[in-house]
């Protein structure tokens, strides 16, 4: 039964959703199942919270190296949760201040790391090792400089090329033509793979949701 029930639920819901996609009359089945998933997913947050408390609590009690971070995490969790529940989340509440003055700058900091990492990855990996890599490198230079005003200015200094539009080269040729073709190839290949894996899940050949196989 431990194997049959999940498989049954998977097959029935998958078939219901496939049928609903093609049949407007049975569209309600799709809505219903999606709503069920949403409800279950909300309850899953409790699972997450329990996991955080157990794992971090355990590390604090054992005083493993770096347990101070676990203390900070648990304090952050309970303080934010408590303030949100008891003080509300509207502007000028303590929760709002935490969101605006702690969470927002911290998130922005993490995102801005991307600029630094792009530079270090480019320095290390972008090498003209082959003919194809050289072509990619030239295209990357044109796009990088073509996407900023300084690049447009530098283009206007070039003797012959300045008569051709850099914007046209970047937007219509590199991005609109070559990039789109590559994106579509990956998208189509991935979509066929998706159909195949979905079919395998539907037939019960692949059951990752049941602990592999």
């Amino acid at each position, binding site marked *: 039964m431990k194997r049959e029930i999940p498989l049954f639920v998977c097959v029935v819901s998958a078939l219901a959703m496939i049928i609903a996609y093609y049949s407007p009359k049975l569209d309600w089945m799709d*809505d219903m199942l*999606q*709503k069920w998933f*949403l409800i279950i997913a*909300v309850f899953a947050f409790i699972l997450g919270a329990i996991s955080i408390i157990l794992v971090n609590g355990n590390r604090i009690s054992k005083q493993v190296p770096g347990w101070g971070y676990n203390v900070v995490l648990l304090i952050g969790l309970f303080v934010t949760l408590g303030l949100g529940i008891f003080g509300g989340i*509207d*502007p000028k509440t303590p929760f709002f201040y935490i*969101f*605006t003055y702690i*969470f*927002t*700058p911290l*998130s*922005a900091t*993490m*995102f*801005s790391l*991307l*600029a*630094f990492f*792009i*530079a*270090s990855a*480019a*320095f*290390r990996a*972008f*090498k*003209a*090792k082959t003919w194809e890599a050289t072509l990619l*490198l030239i295209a*990357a*230079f044109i796009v*990088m*400089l073509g*996407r*900023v*005003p*300084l*690049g*447009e*200015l530098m283009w206007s200094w070039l003797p012959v090329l300045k008569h051709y539009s850099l*914007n046209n080269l*970047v*937007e*219509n040729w590199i*991005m*609109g033509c070559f*990039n*789109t073709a590559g*994106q*579509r190839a990956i*998208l189509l290949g991935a979509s066929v793979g998706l159909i195949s894996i979905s079919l395998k899940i539907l037939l019960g050949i692949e059951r990752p949701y049941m602990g592999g196989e």
Partner: protein
Amino acid sequence: MLEKLANLDRRIIFLFVGLAVLIPIIFPLGLPNAVSQPVQNIYDFVETIPEGSLVFISFDYGPSTKIECEPMALAVTKQLFRRNIKVVGWALWPEGASMARNVFDVTGKEYNKKYGVDYINLGYKAGGSITIKEIGEDIRSTFPQDVDNISIDKYSVMDGVKNYKNFKLGVSVSAGVPGLREYIVVANSIFGVPIAGGCTAVSAPEMYPYLNSKQMVGLMGGLKGAAEYETLMNYVGDASKGMDAQSIAHLLIVLFVIMSNIIFFMQKKK
């Protein structure tokens, strides 16, 4: 020496990038921005929408990507308000509701627009694609209340609004999923509402197939897209100011790549 340069400490690279971003912010260069066609298309489309019509904006980004996405949302909202078009905002990301609040506070004041009459913030709704589909069936059951938990029936901007048919255009400013792609797949493909959008520069290449197949009106890609929109709107906002820093940073990365290739070829020769 060559070996040392080839394995340059990443912290030195980080230092240069930091300076390349910081110096142009302190001493702006004021470089002009050329407008690309995908951005021009959004601007032109908005110009054709009659006054008093409704447009929705979905704020699908959070604080982390605010710096890149907010200038796009601000520029589009300003154009909509300038043309006296009513705006309904909502969010598919939890933090999106407060992002919408920021944008409406700034633009509403600037164009003297009244909350509930000229614009409304419906807040956040979980569900991604499911929510987008639900709005197409009945927006009132999806968002019975606005962001402050007040019934939407009390606001004149929502009078007679039922689903996507009431909107002349949908704009999704997104930093990931759910976002622009989901609006194209569901709101445009199933319900036929024209969709325009803005996304982070990292995700922009992924959107070009949809742009090419005309499933979207236009696209603002990253800070550059926002800066172009600001140029069209004739003002210098955060995006335009940021373009100087981005220009120098891009140039620096190109120089780093050239340097690493010179080292690579010299090592190969040796």
